[in-house]
């Protein structure tokens, strides 16, 4: 009988399974209103 094969373990950096992805935790900056997105450029602060 052939020896059982084993699958190599790989570790992929990622989110802890107990924590939901950021779009489920925080407001997506791209989803706020158009005027607020222009305000978000903060033109009163230097580039």
């Amino acid at each position: 009988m052939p020896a059982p094969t084993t699958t190599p373990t790989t570790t992929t950096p990622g989110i802890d399974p107990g924590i939901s992805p950021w779009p489920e935790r925080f407001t997506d900056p791209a989803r706020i209103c158009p005027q607020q997105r222009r305000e978000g450029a903060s033109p009163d602060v230097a580039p």
Partner: protein
Amino acid sequence: MAGLWFEPGFQPGSPEPSRWVPLADRNVSAFDPSRIDPSPGRRLRAFATLVHSVDPTTGAVALRDTHQPFIQPGKPLTYRELLDRVETDPALANVHQVLGALPLRLGHPRPLVDAIPPEHQWTARDPDLPPALQDLGDEINEDIREGLAAFDNPHHYYPGIDSGIDPVPDDHVKLVIWALQRELNRELRPNEGHYGGSPPLPAAPLTDLPWHVQRAIVERRRLRYLQWGIGKAEWESGVWSLWSVPRDDEYVPRRSARLASIHGV
């Protein structure tokens, strides 16, 4: 109306979205850069926001917020044709001059901010870019959005800018992150697909991002401004020029490209 700007075909009063035509080939009408519209052209998109048709039958066009036409060609022009005329026709030199000195900030004039205030007074509105620079604002928000992936993956690849901009001091990184946070805190949204009763999600805490991501966001912001021809001198004067915006005829805003691919524009 909340959320409707995410719908690519949304037209007030129009049950059927019209066929999409790139701006370069589209007759001058009224262009809203906040709509999902993957029309290419960095300068063309800004220009299209600055003009509007006042009589489609004669092709008469006026500057935004005015109704006095500066051109009446007798037939409709495309945005590309009109931009070419404004760039080259001596008879339109006055329009060319107006578009070369535009206000960088809207809203009640306030002192520029060069340091984090010790006790910040929350205001209902901070200065915002004019609508013609909507794409610039959207690119900065896209950069923030991409940086937030570091919350889920500490090894998230998020490079800053190594060349083409002046070096960014640490204090300026902190100032800009403070300013960006100020606006993120102001307007919150429910999670996607959960409109109608769901509480809004909190703003992403930018200072919790790894320092190299915060720095990269600020370096990218400096580059974005430069991509619209806006450096420190323009910021200090509060004046920008359409003619300093590169033509970049192939440029498509990342937000429009991303959402158009999702919604099938």
